[in-house]
């Protein structure tokens, strides 16, 4: 079985990380990455990209915005009662 090219590694990286490769392709993927520093670097970039995207989650809850939404609730409740 021939070695995967770097381009193929770039294309398959998410399938690899997500467990979407069959075992043969998975082995070929690993055989390549083990001997290819630039592909390992690309892989590291992808991992860091994913981790950094997760940092967008750490957004503060804004109490004033929350107040505005609760005010909508008051309007709605008044409508229901009214």
């Amino acid at each position, binding site marked *: 079985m021939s070695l995967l090219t770097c381009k193929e590694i770039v294309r398959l990286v998410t399938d690899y990380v997500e467990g979407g490769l069959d075992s043969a392709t998975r082995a070929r993927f690993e055989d390549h990455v083990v001997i290819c520093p630039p592909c390992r670097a690309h892989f590291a970039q992808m991992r860091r990209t994913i981790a950094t995207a997760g940092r967008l989650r750490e957004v503060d809850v804004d109490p004033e915005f*929350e107040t505005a939404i*609760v005010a909508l609730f008051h309007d709605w409740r008044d409508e229901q009662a009214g």
Partner: protein
Amino acid sequence: MAGRRVPDPGTGSSRLLWRRTARIERMTGERPAVMVTTMTPEGARRPERPPGPTGSAAATRHRLPQWDERSMLAAARAGDEQAFTTLVRAHTPALRRAARLRVRDDALADEIVQETWLAVLKGLSRFEGRSSVRTWMLTILAHCADRRIAAERGSIPFTALDDDEGVDESRFHGPDHPRWAGMWSTTVDSWSDVPESRLTSRETLSAIREAISALPPGQREVIALRDVEGWSSAEVCAALGLSEGNQRVLLHRARSKVRAALERHLEGAQS
């Protein structure tokens, strides 16, 4: 106000007020001090909220188990403000993130979130519990956002390329190369010299947010739920009605483009 019909989201007074104050914020970079008192003249109504820690710790604290959420919904429907406030605290951060990934204008994103909550209130009695509460709310947000985007054209930038890997062809040896066809022709930086503080700086995070908001809708949804919100692939497939394979394709394209944007950002800042 007996017999008054439920107002259209576009005419809610609180919403307009928020919109106006948001505009002020945009223009001056400051929050008008009168806003809170104006919005809730009855001070007692303002939910008690200690100025304690916010952010991820708060988000975790406010996350509710699903069964509890159903009873919260029922209580809110019956007019229980505490229950409603709990739901708002649990879901607003995620709704806000989702809205901000759809439109670039934060004030517009906040309007969309407000419209979403209005629609949630009006739709409480129709929630059937087939999906999780957060999936239901995100679906409503998507509708609200689409409507607003259609109304205010140009909020969402389009990308020309939809199927590239985010790595320029020129960085690989061409197919005619006798020995290294398809292999890297350039070095690749592993970013091991990039400190974490640099990646989590405001500039870098906003570059990532821009890159995500510029993605085609399917890719944007998938990466927002998977990598920003941290959902599992099974949850995302269920919420968006995707097969595992399609979900991976969308995720790969999205991650590839965001990686490329991050690379451009890091290189641009270096030079």
